[in-house]
């Protein structure tokens, strides 16, 4: 009776809320610190990264990687300006244990293009895809599936399958020429690589003062995109408007890169600036989903070669996918450009720039130029050490390679989530197979790529020519006003 009375009168009722749960680290008295907490901010209009709040459990791992590996979160002063600082590297998508953070899924756009009868859908695959895609089909980490993935893409309905390693060779032709120009004039040294879009945006945010050091070369993805809608279109007699250009990348920042307003060189050449050089970027994971949804089992397919005229590659173009690969490839061709001789064997197996050490240093003797000192950084927290030295003019490097993701593209934010958190074992396995592919290749340096040479002969004339500059080179944005870098972290 008393109990019933209490219930009726409301003395026994309970307040609303508090029926759920929180990760245990948060369930402590308010005066105790919690180390790993919260999550990274992600703008709803972020072109590369998306988050499903319903899956977020506030484990704090995205924040850990963003701060301690990428060195973005926590490296700017509060209050923020009018931007949510993000370099789109996608490492958070690799660490997120519940899969709440993913790439911005664009499979539907590609499916729509494939279904459309009047569009010529081309696709390029980055060097690092061929040693990672197999993992999504239960193959061991690093399995080489280059030929199978071409077959798979053909089966999925792509009209032409091109190799980003081809445009990596093209990049090297341009970038090595640019490097030699800088080495001989002594201007803008050290030379910074520019093929990693995450690194480029990072530099635009935090090291805008060092922008002259950045190579003006576009990344291989954007070079292939620009060439496909100009040179390839001309060769094949297809209107650039009809070409739908897809890039499969190990990277989420590539989604951002292809949407940069200046990435419409082929369109400008055509007189139609609305044409994008690359229309959609899919990550390795998205490609795997696309193939699976089409019932294509990669592991059961035979090999098919890439399509001409943007399909030939050399060992140099392939190792772009690993940290140090760009440096090694650039030096092989630079050696040739200076000496007109093939590089010595040591430069075809340059161990000093290979491996997973955070900052690698090496030097090479270029006859007629002198000693060229190089540094290779992957993971941007390590890059900061190098960059601070350059900023303080305490460095004697001539060439520095930067990759946002640990291990380079093979460890990119768009790669299969084969281990959690991403592990060096997986990275090493992928790298080993890229170098194996290079080691067994007949052509080891970019200047040996016949299809690249054909391009110069028929269309661009020479590296750094006026045509090359307009199609293959770019400029950068000063983003330093969008944040106040922290003096001390």
């Amino acid at each position, binding site marked *: 009776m008393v109990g019933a009375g209490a219930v009726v009168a*409301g003395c026994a009722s309970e307040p609303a*809320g*508090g029926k*759920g*749960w929180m990760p245990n680290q948060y369930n402590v008295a308010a005066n105790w610190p919690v180390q790993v*907490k*919260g999550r990274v901010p992600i703008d709803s209009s972020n072109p590369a990264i998306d988050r499903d*709040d319903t899956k977020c459990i506030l484990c704090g791992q995205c924040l850990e990687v963003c701060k301690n590996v990428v060195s973005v979160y926590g490296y700017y002063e509060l209050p923020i*300006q009018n931007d*949510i600082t993000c370099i789109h590297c996608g490492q958070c998508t690799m660490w997120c244990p519940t899969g709440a953070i993913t790439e911005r899924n664009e499979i539907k756009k590609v499916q729509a293009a494939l279904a459309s009868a009047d569009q010529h859908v081309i696709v390029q695959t980055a060097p690092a895809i061929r040693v990672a895609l197999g993992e999504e089909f239960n193959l061991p980490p690093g399995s080489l599936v280059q030929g199978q993935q071409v077959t798979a893409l053909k089966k999925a309905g792509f009209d032409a399958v091109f190799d980003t390693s081809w445009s990596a060779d093209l990049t090297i032709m341009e970038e090595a020429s640019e490097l030699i120009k800088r080495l001989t004039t002594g201007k803008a040294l050290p030379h910074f690589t520019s093929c990693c879009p995450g690194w480029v945006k990072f530099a635009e945010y935090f090291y805008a003062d060092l922008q002259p050091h950045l190579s003006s070369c576009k990344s291989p993805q954007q070079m292939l995109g620009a060439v496909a809608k100009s040179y390839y279109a001309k060769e094949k007699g297809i209107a650039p408007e009809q070409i739908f250009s897809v890039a499969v990348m190990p990277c989420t920042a590539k989604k951002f890169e292809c949407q940069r307003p200046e990435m419409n060189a082929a369109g400008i050449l055509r007189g139609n600036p609305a044409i994008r050089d690359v229309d959609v970027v899919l990550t390795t994971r998205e490609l795997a989903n696309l193939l699976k949804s089409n019932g294509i089992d990669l592991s059961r397919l035979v090999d098919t070669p890439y399509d001409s005229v943007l399909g030939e590659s050399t060992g140099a173009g392939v190792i772009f996918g690993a940290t140090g690969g760009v440096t090694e490839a650039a030096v092989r061709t630079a050696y040739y450009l200076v000496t007109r001789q093939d590089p010595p064997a040591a430069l075809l197996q340059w161990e000093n720039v290979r491996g997973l050490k955070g900052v690698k240093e090496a030097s090479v003797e270029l006859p007629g130029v002198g000693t060229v000192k190089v540094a290779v950084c992957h993971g941007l927290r390590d890059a900061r050490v190098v960059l601070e030295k350059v900023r303080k003019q305490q460095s004697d490097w001539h060439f520095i390679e930067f990759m946002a993701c640990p291990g380079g593209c093979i460890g990119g934010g768009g790669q299969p989530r084969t281990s959690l958190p991403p592990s060096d074992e997986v990275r090493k396995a992928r790298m080993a197979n890229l170098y194996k592919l290079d080691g067994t290749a007949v052509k080891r340096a970019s200047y040996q790529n016949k299809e690249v040479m054909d391009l110069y002969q028929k269309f661009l004339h020479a590296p750094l020519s006026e045509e090359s500059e307009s199609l293959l080179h770019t400029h950068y944005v000063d983003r330093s006003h969008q944040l106040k870098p922290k003096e001390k972290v």
Partner: protein
Amino acid sequence: MSKGVLVDITKCIGCGSCTVACKMWNKLEYDQNVSSIGETAKLNDKNWTVVTRTSAQDSKGQAVWRFAKQQCMHCLEPACASACFSRALQRNADGAVEYYPDLCVGCRYCMIACPFDVPKYEWSKAAPLITKCQLCSTRVAKGEAPACVAVCPTGVMKFGDRQELLQEAHQLIRREDLYLKTVYGEKEVGGTCWLYISDIPFDQLGFKSGLGSVALPSYTHSFLKNVPIIALGWGVLLTGMSFYARRRNELAKARQERLAGKNGEGDADADDFDEEA
């Protein structure tokens, strides 16, 4: 002693951890149509707290984004609780204004009364209830910070004793040029447990302005306190008037009878009260 939360708007990066924490701890659904973070974020029955994004200009005229966390302000003298006629809203000893669903009738007077428009209604449900932030009263009772405060990675929010937080806020805004020299929630409608400091004027960030420092229940109280006296006085007056009027009518009738020289049939003009015989 009332607890409180001090919010430093300048530290918020808009990650929305707090909104997720609120959903997790209170087992709230995600609204497919109404976001809890960003420009269109809005409090509703599923969103007990939201982080809104506003484009503003800082003191140097530079365009900046600012994020404002919204939730129940937990007034020191809550209008909603005073408006609730079934005690479904009560302020506890920690200062949390708690909602007891069992006691709610669903009249929505609290929504009318709340100067911050915080209580929301489960419009889509068959038997809707009011919903709002509870200041994680069960966590606070254990000495833990509210869920939203606990998860904030940049330390936007600080949980503690309201009085101490208020002092801290004043020290901070005195010391740092960045801040406006006002603490939102210190005086608004008599003071709130949630206190905010900012570098951008609060009204630009969607905070209600012009609320004044008078606690809203006092408007009601100044009316209600007179009710018993008026009721009693009015009753006595009416009784008096009734007797007086009746007597006057009787006298008038008697006079009339005298004038008319009538006799007998005395009840001709009496009203119906004394009609029974």
